[in-house]
């Protein structure tokens, strides 16, 4: 287990001619829980997608564990231990739930599917349904479960709670915390519900127009009312 499973240096990325990220650098220790916050359209999704190798990178370096994955395609990054749960869920619509999960197994035996079903019993009930037939929340569960099955060392979560019932959210956050605590997994979380994110995280970075505008611990952010007001647009946190 390397000391820093993920290190990002001076990353710039965007879409075609539009640059969205500018010189983002950070690194996270093993087992860390990093919350990435920011207002609408500030580049959170872009950051995660770039780490996963899905957007155009202009500049910078991404190191995953011991490997520099900057030049590697998305699939290779996955084999180097990166897991990605995108904001748009991206369930495979013509595959059944079971087949969807199967894709995420990354060569592990089929029995490992039970882990996912244990985490979300609802998926077990719907395992023969096609991805396109699932409800919004069920899709979200599937997308998350699918990535976790591959045992990533770094898990990128883009708004994994969206559309989930409060009970499920609670359980899911607990499960994430558990995964991080055992030290096997480092988690980057993008979340709109700031309080949930801060409750979960042990580190926070805040993006503002594609740059890191603030970083620190959740506690210090809660106290920095000015930053919260300016960067997150919310009156204050409890």
């Amino acid at each position, binding site marked *: 287990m390397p000391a820093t499973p993920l290190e990002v240096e001076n990353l710039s990325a965007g879409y075609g001619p539009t640059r969205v990220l500018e010189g983002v650098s950070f690194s996270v220790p093993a087992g860390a829980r990093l919350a990435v916050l920011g207002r609408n359209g500030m580049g959170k999704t872009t950051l995660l997608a770039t780490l996963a190798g899905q957007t155009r990178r202009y500049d910078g370096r991404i190191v995953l564990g011991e490997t520099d994955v900057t030049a590697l395609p998305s699939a290779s990054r996955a084999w180097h231990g990166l897991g990605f749960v995108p904001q748009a869920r991206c369930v495979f619509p013509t595959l059944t739930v079971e087949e969807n999960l199967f894709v995420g197994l990354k060569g592990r035996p089929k029995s490992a599917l039970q882990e996912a079903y244990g985490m979300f019993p609802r998926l077990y009930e719907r395992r023969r349904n096609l991805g396109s037939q699932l*409800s*919004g929340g069920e899709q979200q569960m599937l997308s998350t479960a699918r990535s976790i099955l591959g045992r990533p060392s770094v898990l990128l979560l883009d708004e994994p709670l969206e559309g*989930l*019932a*409060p009970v*499920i959210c609670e359980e899911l956050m607990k499960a994430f915390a558990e995964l991080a605590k055992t030290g096997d997994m480092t988690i980057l979380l993008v979340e709109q*519900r700031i309080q949930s994110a801060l409750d979960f995280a042990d580190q926070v970075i805040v993006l503002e127009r594609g740059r890191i505008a603030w970083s620190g611990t959740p506690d210090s952010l809660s106290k920095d009312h000015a930053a919260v007001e300016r960067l997150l647009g*919310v009156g204050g946190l409890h």
Partner: protein
Amino acid sequence: MSTIFEVRSLKRSFGGLAVTNNVSLAMAPGDRVALIGPNGAGKTTFVNLVTGNLTPDSGDVLIGGESVTRIDATGRVRRGLVRSFQVTRLFQEMTPAEHVALAVLQRDGRAGRMFGHFLAMPEVMAEVAELLGKLGLSELMHRRVSEIAYGQQRLLEIAVALALKPRVLLLDEPAAGVPQSDTGRIEQALADLPADLAVLMIEHDMDLVFRFAKRVIVLAAGTIIFDGSPSDVTKDPRVREAYLGSYANAGHAA
């Protein structure tokens, strides 16, 4: 109180799974109702049945006392029943201004006109600008939807629904994916709605639900297990167990 919108024992199942199981409810003008329930409870299906995107196995849907069960989706929209989509459905190649303009023109029965351009129609543009301004999308109004962030697309989804000036508005998770900083805009937009409009909102963000709703309906496994005031819902043990979890304890409703 008159009813503007009514559903009578609606049923629909998918291959043996009863997703909507004998659901009945009625709404009056001005109602602000939240429909909540566990994932997969059948909320979206309910909306699809009501708007005509799915056909029910049995049951009736009435708008303003008129049965629309046999009328297709467009007919229901023309009668004032408008919805937003849980997963945004927008025209990726078009701009927010075009979306709203299209809705406005369609509402006024002018969307079939074969001459002129909406940018050159001041009354349309005024409405477009106002609505987009209200939802904070003014700056993006001439960008392509494929280029704007997801949260902003969610806001646009709502703008389109509002532009149709509905009598009954069904919102499927309007705030999902919208950052906290912007949920305020949604709330403000909803608050500005005409008082006689009936709104049914599906939402998992309980803070929003409790600020918005005067009445809460809880759907579980296709049946309504609770229909009452927000303050009562947190006390209902079934709802707490199936849905709210510890949220009920936190006392947000108060």
